[in-house]
């Protein structure tokens, strides 16, 4: 069984939901990310999403854009993100890692080389924001044969037909973005999420992680009652941005926030 499937199976058994932090690899500096990943695991996260820095992050709001810019200033890239995963895997063999980024770095590396590299780095899932299922056939096949899950986004306006399409081509989990708009925007509406999740569940058996708009322990708890996992990104990166003078303090603040979320979700 893959690490992702094993994680969701174990969580289901314990009647718990997955806490899934998102951080941009190499933000605010290349040395920060691996120790942070280990600390987040100690704080009780279940899956880690690593953002691959990209020069033109079209689907991201200002917070994650700036994280990308900080990482790019240190020449972080797809290759160094894979190196971070490799380093993390040396001492952690069980926590799934999902990388999330844009297609162009993958295109330039080449799909086959990318699939090999991702597999070799011990990465469990790949979410490529601007690669919808219609264009994803070749890449997803290469990933699946290496037991790496292609993970797809679902939006509030995704039709039942599209949900079924994601179900057939995707693996690992589906990532429901609960707001229209970019990352880090607005407030989520729990009732709307609940209605949409019912429609999604009618079309897929894959676990559903919910993100966009999760800011604190309270929203994490609300979402945990609805989905199978809670993704938190911009709120964590805001802590990095607020503590650029002291990455150690940033790490402390992130761990504090995740610990509070874990507690809220489990009670």
């Amino acid at each position, binding site marked *: 069984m893959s690490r992702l499937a094993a994680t969701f199976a174990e969580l289901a058994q314990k009647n718990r939901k997955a806490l899934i932090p998102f951080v941009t690899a190499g933000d605010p500096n290349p040395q920060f990310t691996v120790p942070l990943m280990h600390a987040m695991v100690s704080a009780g996260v279940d899956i880690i999403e690593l953002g691959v820095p990209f020069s033109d992050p079209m*689907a991201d709001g200002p917070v994650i854009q700036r994280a990308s810019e900080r990482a790019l200033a240190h020449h972080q890239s797809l290759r160094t993100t894979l190196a971070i995963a490799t380093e993390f895997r040396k001492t952690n063999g069980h926590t799934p890692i999902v990388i999330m980024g844009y297609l162009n770095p993958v295109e330039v590396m080449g799909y086959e080389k990318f699939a090999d590299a991702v597999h070799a780095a011990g990465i469990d899932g790949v979410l490529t924001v601007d690669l919808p299922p219609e264009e994803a056939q070749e890449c997803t096949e290469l990933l699946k044969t290496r037991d790496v899950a292609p993970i797809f986004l679902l939006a509030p306006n995704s039709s039942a037909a599209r949900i079924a399409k994601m179900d057939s081509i995707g693996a690992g989990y589906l990532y429901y973005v609960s707001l229209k708009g970019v990352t880090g925007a607005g407030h989520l509406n729990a009732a709307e999420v609940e209605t949409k999740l019912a429609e999604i569940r009618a079309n897929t058996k894959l676990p559903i992680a919910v993100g966009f708009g999760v800011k604190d322990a309270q929203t994490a708890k609300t979402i945990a009652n609805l989905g199978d996992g809670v993704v938190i990104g911009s709120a964590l990166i805001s802590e990095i941005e607020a503590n650029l003078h002291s990455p150690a303090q940033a790490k402390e603040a992130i761990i504090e926030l995740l610990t509070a979320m874990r507690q809220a979700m489990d009670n």
Partner: protein
Amino acid sequence: MTEKYNMPDARGHFGVYGGIFVAETLMPAIEELNTAYQHYMQDADFIAELDKDLQHYVGRPSPLYYAERWSQALGGAQIYLKREDLNHTGSHKINNTVGQALLAKRMGKTRIIAETGAGQHGVATATVAARLGLECVIYMGAVDVARQSLNVYRMKLLGAKVVAVESGSKTLKDALNEALRDWVTNIDNTFYIIGTVAGPHPYPAMVRDFQAILGREARAQCLAQTGKLPSALVACVGGGSNAMGLFYPFIDDAHVKLIGVEAAGDGVETGRHSAPLCAGRPGVLHGNRTYLMSDDDGEIIETHSISAGLDYPGVGPEHAWLKDSGRASYVNITDDEALGGFYALTRMEGIIPALESSHAMAYTLKLAPTMKKDDILIVNLSGRGDKDMQTMAKREGIEL
């Protein structure tokens, strides 16, 4: 070519190029747009309204002007200029914004957004939005806002809100990113008017179809004036909408050479340029697969050109296809060479071209003398140079 050209396929592919590469949040909007576009391009009432606007509001047809003196001076091909500079707002951009704005109106959208580099597309968009009474927001890189202040003022006069984009390189590509972010956030009431033959399907095909009016006119005018088809077409290529509009009606005329002119900036060998077809590699950006300026890690490289309208790291996917298939060829012209084209046309024919179009003029200086005297060469004069007076004066050390 034995079969009639019929690109793209139903999902917007030109060979391996084009397609729809966007986040899921945008997909329903793209599908809605594609359905409307397919429907209205077959709708006689819509086409009649568009034709009427193109004639009475834009001022079409634009002349195909025989540049007799310039032709004689160069001693080769007979040069004909397609006068898109004479359109309302001063460039070919309005052909497309009129079309997309009418589509927006038919779709019941009340808010228009657009990205702009030099400001020509922004002005053309603000213009049609004003005429239709639609709210209008234009995204423009902060660097471009500073170097194209005249057009910023024009857009504001027309009632548009101009947002200076401070992220990334603060130029056209970042304005496009920001416009996409706006669109995904305000999908229900907003129509995104993309200004070039790039972006996710249906934009490359749709913008080409709206711009093809200029190529159809040029073809008919050339036949009427000279009794034959041209030997070659020359047009500048940034995103490539004026070139695509000119080339498209000639693609099946296999003996007509199609030549696109990219911006070489300081020279392709310096790396400071905007010539992805000549010196880039295939990749995916802004919703389509095409030639891009990107580094070995797939990050997009900052571009350079004297003309803000060509200062973009990508190019329309149909150009990528025409290049690979060999149907069109792509050359490049440096900033300095473009200035040569600018002065040549100004002094020889009394027409001041836009700096973008000056790249096509500069290539004409090289190409025309190598052609026979009975060859016809059509050059797209895609826009007028009024907007570039400040840039030119500054280069000449003159304070206006």
